[in-house]
């Protein structure tokens, strides 16, 4: 079997440019790996469409300046790709075929990337193991007894197992970064508004953000270059026009780093802290200034998340009612149609969150919980902004533990929230945050997080690339 896809994007591009390989070679390699490894990374595989596209591209001269030309990419199954199923890993959308492209998909198609398929995930992105998927749950390529993390589990597995060099995930409370950590890859949740949400099936609108998942920091910045663009179809999208790779390689010696004490407290497993402290020591010895700081309200993120995300989700998922599209249980009365469709269509975790969210927004609760949560969220954002006035970046472990056994969270829904205890803050404040590998624990990769102020992605990539180079981990499944 060819292993072109293990090369860097620049090297693959060179081979395409010199006519040594064709896009179809890359596509076939993707499909071969995908079929061989049986990791359930995908819900829908577009064999036909991807091959057709690859052959079409043979009629086009490979453009010198388009590194993305002919490169396979995997898309999380809550992002609309025209003519492909978009299930959100739910029975209620099991047979829903999208009639339009999400704005990010248009950008990807414009650059002639090849979409291999739609990746597995937690149902409607609700979960942190991908086990709430209606379909067969994806498996961690590092250890088949472990979860791949979630909700963007399939997208992380696709990259980690070499099926595609790029994938897109979505991150509402850590759903890109936590699976990136569990799979030993790089995942970025960009600044809220940096990437258009048009075509992303909404979970919690004020927190959701699409982001790139890649093998390394540089390629992550490249993919963010491609997918970030102001979009008139999304009123929360922002003006954005910059090269995120521009600071990579620049000296980081003068950076001032803050480490919130809470993020290195006993909420994190000891082994994880040891690996993290190793990285900090390396940075210190290189000359970076690192301070341990207190951040107001930092421990409240999981509670805020439950109130805000679930409140918004209960409203966002109301449209799946069996009237216009998706699963529809034909019953004698309207109420029965709603009841049956939604009871059968949604899984347990989704129903739980809809119920909690509806309760939170009901009557006086809206004031007691929801409005109060919005206030504290604002305070939390301000307390982070205060840190960024003095420090360039914040560092923390991404997850409190490495990938754990399949089924461990099943009977304890709260455990799943505690998984994201270190990553939700970025969503609450709209800040960018990236997870990159920092080491391994008992054969499993574990990630660390670089968080930045609004719009500071380039600085995150700058430090991320430095750490990546210093650690020189080169994690690869099976090696």
């Amino acid at each position, binding site marked *: 079997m060819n292993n072109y896809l293990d090369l860097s994007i620049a090297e693959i591009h060179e081979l395409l440019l010199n006519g040594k390989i064709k896009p179809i070679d890359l596509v076939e390699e993707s499909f071969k790996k995908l079929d061989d490894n049986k990791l359930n990374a995908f819900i829908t595989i577009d064999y036909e469409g991807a091959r057709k596209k690859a052959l079409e591209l043979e009629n086009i001269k490979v453009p010198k300046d388009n590194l993305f030309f002919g490169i396979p990419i995997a898309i999380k199954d809550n992002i*609309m790709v025209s003519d492909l199923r*978009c299930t959100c890993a739910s029975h209620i959308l099991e047979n829903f075929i999208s009639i339009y492209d999400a704005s990010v998909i248009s950008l990807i198609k414009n650059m002639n990337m090849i979409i291999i398929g739609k990746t597995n995930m937690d149902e409607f992105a609700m979960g942190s193991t991908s086990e709430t998927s209606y379909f067969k749950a994806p498996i961690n390529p590092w250890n088949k007894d472990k979860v791949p993390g979630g909700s963007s589990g399939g997208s992380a597995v696709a990259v980690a197992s070499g099926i595609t060099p790029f994938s897109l995930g979505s991150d509402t409370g850590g759903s890109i970064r936590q699976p990136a950590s569990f799979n030993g890859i790089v995942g970025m949740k960009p600044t809220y508004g940096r990437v258009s949400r048009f075509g992303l099936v*909404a979970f919690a609108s004020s927190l959701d953000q699409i982001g790139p998942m890649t093998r390394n920091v540089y390629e992550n910045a490249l993919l963010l270059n491609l997918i970030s663009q102001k979009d008139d179809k999304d009123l929360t999208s922002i003006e954005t026009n910059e090269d995120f790779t521009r600071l990579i390689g620049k000296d980081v010696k003068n950076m001032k780093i803050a480490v919130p004490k809470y993020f290195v407290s006993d909420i994190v497993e000891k082994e994880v802290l040891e690996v993290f402290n190793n990285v900090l020591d390396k940075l210190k010895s290189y000359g970076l200034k690192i301070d341990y700081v207190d951040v107001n309200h930092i421990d409240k993120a999981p509670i805020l998340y439950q109130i805000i995300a679930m409140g918004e989700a209960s409203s966002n998922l109301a449209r799946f009612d069996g009237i216009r599209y998706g699963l529809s249980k034909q019953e004698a009365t309207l109420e029965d149609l709603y009841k049956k469709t939604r009871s059968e269509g949604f899984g347990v975790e989704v129903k739980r969150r809809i119920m909690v969210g509806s309760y939170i*927004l009901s009557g006086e609760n809206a004031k007691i919980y929801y409005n109060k949560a919005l206030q504290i969220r604002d305070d939390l954002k301000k307390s982070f902004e205060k840190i960024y006035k003095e420090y360039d970046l914040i560092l923390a472990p991404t997850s409190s533990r490495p990938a754990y056994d399949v089924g461990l969270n099943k009977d304890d829904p709260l455990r799943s929230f505690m998984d994201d205890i270190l990553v939700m803050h970025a969503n609450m404040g709209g800040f960018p945050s990236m997870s990159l590998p920092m080491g391994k624990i008992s054969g499993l990769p574990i990630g660390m997080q670089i968080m930045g102020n609004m719009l500071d992605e380039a600085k995150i990539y700058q430090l991320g690339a430095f750490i990546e180079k210093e650690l020189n981990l080169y994690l690869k499944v099976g090696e």
Partner: protein
Amino acid sequence: MNYQKTIGIEVHVELKTKEKLFSPAINSYGSLANSNCNIIDLGYPGTLPTLNQEAIDLAIRAASVLNCKISKKMHFDRKNYFYPDNPKNFQITQEGTPIGRDGYIEIEDNGTKKKIEILEMHIEEDTCKSIHSKERTLLDFNRAGVPLIEIVTKPCIHTSREATLYLERLRELLLYANVSDCKIEEGSMRCDANISISKTDTLGTKIEVKNIGSITNVGLAIDYEAKRQEELLEAGKTLKEETRRYDAKLGKTILMRVKETGNDYRYFPEPDIPYITLTEEKIQEVVKNIPTLANIRREKYLKSGISLINVNKLIANKDLSDYLEELDGVNLKTASNLLLGDIQAYLNKVNKTIKETELTKEKMAELVEKLDSNIISNKNFKDIIEDVMTLNLSVSEILDKKGIKNVRDDSLVLDIINKVIIDNQSVVLDYLNGNERALKFLMGQVMKESKGSVNPKIANDLLIKTLETKK
């Protein structure tokens, strides 16, 4: 002691925008079902609302003519409820920060003025239209997402007369501000009335009558409902909050549903639409462009000598009034006579609006000018008006085409008069002998000879002058 009625009125008005409130689909009425809707209106997964600035501008206009305080910082909220006509199962509306608050409209009844206070007005999206048949319900999404404003009065109305005057005045204001068509029959204006009666200062049980089909029927529904409630109370019964509808054929209100306590819409701020800031400059700019309102036009028309009857006719026909507004420096009285006479008759005949004809403002001004200066007669006008309105030709070209000469040319008229005098010597003698009726005959001959193309007044003067020289 008698029962006092207390009435609050809620009106929904569709804004006259080109596109929908949160999508670029066309805002239209009467199109083929489901031809003007897109993935946003259908509530497709992954779609997000955009915001139609024109709708915001029209809502500012409305708030301004209703004398409301305008919210400088506002946002939208989600109202969550399940119903098939509500595609997302939430409606985007304004709960916390309505665009207008604390407004009023002044009504006048037999010389007595009263302010009807407006509690608030807010912007929201319309639902889609359900068409119920025996077996099933069909949904037309053309209406889904059409911009609406809802205008809510305080419970400050006490008679059906006040209610109908308020609605007439409201309709006129919104119509003339070009905010909405306000056609109740097409649903672009919908009226609900909350009615209660009480003998004390404490308000009675509120009963809502929804979607009443005309302003007149609002009055009838209020009177019926108040009487119904009084009879129940007098019979010792207690009232429950409920929603009713008015059946115009039966002249009765009919129960739709009893209100359940704690209707829970789970409102929260719409996260997909950022807060909107309206600057004072922005508001002023919108207000500056509000077309002249009816009361100002009314005064102007009366001042220019148009009869009260015609003034009312013009105000009732906004198209013609708008047309009149656009005519610069033209004699309004003459123009209004023409508009309300032959022009309107022709428009009615062919079922067109004035804008759909060839009657440009320039041609209209020329017609008025020619009539006022006796260059053409009323008869001439009648003869050419259809051509003027249907042909892309100037008034002069049409006069030429019709063979209507420059009848103001005295020598031309004189030629005709001289011919008539020669042909009717005996009648001329009669006139010279003091028979006044002979003049009428001669005048008739002049008109006949000229085929009606001379201006009768000019011809008459010239005829007398010529006859005088024969004395």
